[in-house]
């Protein structure tokens, strides 16, 4: 029953938090205001009021039309989700230290070995091919300014 009202409630609370906490704390006062113009916090405040009104309207609509209840985005398996999240965050943090090629290689091969049916050899082949593609296409040809493993190591 409560789940039905969750989206409206979340939107309403979001609007209230923006209006009462984020706008007063997050918008610097310029110290003066030109007449007949919008102050820095005016537009966000109007929008926050609209969000609150829409949240209220959603509560009413969700009460009258239960088919709009929230849905679970999908099944959740903590044994898969946690190692994946750690691996992803670790890879992102490793990029400035060991470069994109080494980080991408470790992540790709790790995911392919642990999650797919490719096996070690297939995973290594895909990983090497992908890293070569990144290096040639994106770093050498397109000149994307990202930490590159050969530049860091040699």
């Amino acid at each position: 029953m409560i789940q039905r009202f969750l989206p409206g409630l979340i939107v309403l609370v979001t609007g209230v938090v923006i209006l009462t906490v984020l706008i007063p704390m997050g918008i610097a006062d310029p110290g003066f205001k030109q007449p007949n113009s919008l102050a820095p916090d005016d537009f966000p405040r109007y929008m926050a009021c609209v969000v609150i009104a829409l949240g209220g309207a959603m509560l009413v609509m969700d009460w009258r039309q239960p088919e709009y209840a929230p849905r679970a985005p999908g099944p959740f398996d903590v044994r898969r989700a946690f190692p994946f999240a750690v691996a992803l965050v670790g890879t992102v943090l490793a990029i400035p230290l060991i470069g994109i090629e080494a980080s991408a290689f470790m992540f790709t091969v790790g995911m392919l070995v642990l999650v797919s049916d490719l096996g070690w050899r297939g995973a290594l082949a895909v990983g090497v091919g992908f890293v070569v593609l990144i290096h040639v296409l994106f770093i050498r040809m397109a000149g994307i300014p990202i930490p590159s493993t050969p530049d860091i190591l040699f």
Partner: protein
Amino acid sequence: MDIWSNVASMLLDWQVIAFLPLGVLMGAIIGAIPGLTITMSISVLLPFTLFLDPLPGLVLIFGISKGGLYGGSISAILLNVPGTPAAACTMLDGHPLARKGRAGEALDAALWASFIGDMISVLALILLAGALAQLGLQFGPVELFALIVFSLTIIAAISNAGLLRGMVGGTLGLLAGTVGLDLAYGSERFTFGSPNLYDGIAFMPLLVGLFALPDILLYYFGPREIHRSETDNQTDASRRLSLSNFRMILPTILKGSGIGVILGAIPGIGATASTFVSYAEAKRSAPDRAEFGEGALSGVAAAESANSGTGASTLIPLLALGIPGDIVGAMLLGAFYFHGLAPGPLLFTNNMDFIYALYITLLISSCIVLVVGMYGTQYIRRIVDIPRDILFPIVLMLTVLGSFAISNSIFDVWIMLIAGIVGIGFRALRISEAAFLIGFVLSPLLENNMQRVLIISRGDMWAFFDSWMAIFFYAATAIAILMRIFMPVFESRKARLAHSGVR
């Protein structure tokens, strides 16, 4: 004469020549792979195009979009899995045809419908965008404000999430667009002291996070899916479309293309809705309407012509007025800004050579879709069955690489990851991500024009209604909202009456 030599030099650039076919081919492959959407692939690849010159970068994106519109039909016909949401209608008749051993005919019907629909769409863009831009030159801040309100409301009203959730998405997008330095005073807004946010939330990481990440994160957060090959029941695709059957479906293709062009030019409607309208019309009027649902070539032709008919016509409001009509339009608007080009009436005054070059590449890419479809489909069908276990780690690394590369900052990667989590939240609460993105893109424009109207009119609120054009947009906005609210009521009442009549 000078303008045409500029156009020729732009078109003869090796990057344009290379990326035109590459984009279409990539789009056709990506569109054909179930689980990889066009929006996902464009959002992953868009950051890399920013390192190219404007025309090659945009050509690559347009190619992916066009190839993807056709590619979606390959898996819909052969595998009974729509590669894109817009290909769902193609599947209704395409797969029954394939099961009857007429896959080749269905693929040909889809290909010719895509080609003709796309050509008509590009011609409509060429004929209408310039004229609309001329009209747009007369727009002042009042009209622009009303136009943005109209566009945002239409996008919210037509979104699958429903009017209210569409409006919530749009308003949250407008709020997210205020992060950074204030336009008039230079005050910090929601930056909390972080210099990374002075220019606002970076568009590309937000885009990648919202549209590419949720599918991948949800895949790894859930239990493992056992991959089943979809290509086991492949059917013979060697039989071609006969001339008499082509003549039979041609009127349906032309009608579907017209529907796609008209609906595609209205912000918010897009390809999926157009295909359903065209399919319903063909079901009523096509010569083989009795076979609909069991394998009618006109069904495939109607869906695909409308699908591709929206391709270039969605660019009409984007190029002429700077208003994105759909998610791809919003992505392109970001790409235009990044390249120092502002879509809108002034683009037609200051960068006419660029516009001509863009038109020509769009026409050429339509022909490339035809070539790829005629000679590449047999190869594409062999690679559409790549398991997500192999695909997703690679796509994920590309999203990280793209987000990092924009400003060489790990901060943008965190923005992308947070946006991915927000995207999952939006899906759970059924809030429209498309409306959010378009609100985010249009936020500075809306606030700036609101500010200008207030300053010029010295705070008089009636100034917002001081133009017939603005009143027209407000009236259209009100009608769109009222229709969205009352149409379901009328339809359910009509269904109830019909039901009681039957009893």
